[in-house]
């Protein structure tokens, strides 16, 4: 259940980028497959944590990023169907380096500028 810690870190980051008079409409994040984060839990935590704030009602849009690896032996890049089967299809050696599919990235925010009234 590291969704709570990741969502808390995300909210902190969103807050730091949100203009003073802006109302948050949508947040776009990329979530790597290897993070094993449940998107429904993330969306729920996001909705509950933003209640009664300028971020209330904002939509959290999650883009899953599948695992993509590079073979350290022959430098072949490929996308494994099963993250537990990482033998290189080119050279048969299992020495993968993760290129994509780990970590959580805050991509962008959509904000409605208020008229200051």
């Amino acid at each position, binding site marked *: 259940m590291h969704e709570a810690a990741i969502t808390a*870190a995300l909210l902190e980051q969103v807050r730091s980028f949100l203009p003073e008079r802006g109302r948050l409409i949508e947040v776009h994040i990329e979530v790597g497959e290897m993070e094993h984060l449940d998107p429904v839990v993330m969306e729920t935590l996001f909705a509950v944590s933003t209640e009664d704030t300028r971020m209330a009602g904002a939509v959290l849009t999650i883009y899953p990023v599948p695992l993509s690896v590079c073979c350290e032996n022959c430098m072949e890049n490929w996308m494994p169907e099963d993250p537990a089967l990482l033998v290189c299809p080119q050279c048969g050696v299992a*020495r993968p380096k993760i290129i994509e599919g780990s970590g959580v990235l805050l991509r962008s925010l959509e904000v409605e500028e208020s008229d200051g009234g």
Partner: protein
Amino acid sequence: MAEIPVVAKVLKLNDELAAMNRLALADAGVRCVNLMGAPGCGKTALLEATLSALAGKLMVGVVAGDIATTRDAERLIAHTPHVTQINTGGSCHLEAHQVRQGMDHLPLTDLDLLIIENVGNLICPVSFDLGEGARVAMFSVTEGHDKPAKHPSVVLAADLVILGKIDLKPYVPFDESIFRAYLANMRDNLAVLPLSATSGEGLSAWISWLTDFGAGSSGFRVNLSI
């Protein structure tokens, strides 16, 4: 409506704090191991045996992470005075700022090696860099030989795998060759150390690995890729 592009890692703050831990440890000449494993895999028992074996050879400190209680620290304090317990209060992993709090309670300049006993979990701790120099993933024979295949993230993040409780092998349906094959499907050059903290079998290889690592002959993990 305006779009504000950001493109930043959500755990950027944790990563920065981890980098600060790494610098503070390097400044003090302390090597740091992050021990990760499921609840009940035998992390604390291994540390008890480890501290006992390293007494007089390396000065070892421990930051023990748990959701609650000081039970692990109470067990370990019999072997070294340099133990700090971190209670995460429900969180299933340690974060860099918590390790820093633990480090602040230890005499870093007197230590050769700092072992972080992460909260028992094979998923969540993997996402959080703590400033360690090496990550050790611990499994045990009682968990079944397919555990690595169910937890590829920790296998990909590990610098070393420990297979614990091998004294119990005769009593459980565990096939070490299948366990090793699952690991080799992901990393065919990942070292595996089978051992038993209870019988002492295999412990010397782990102590040698730690001694080499603590003395600085193993590579420092400078930048975690995940």
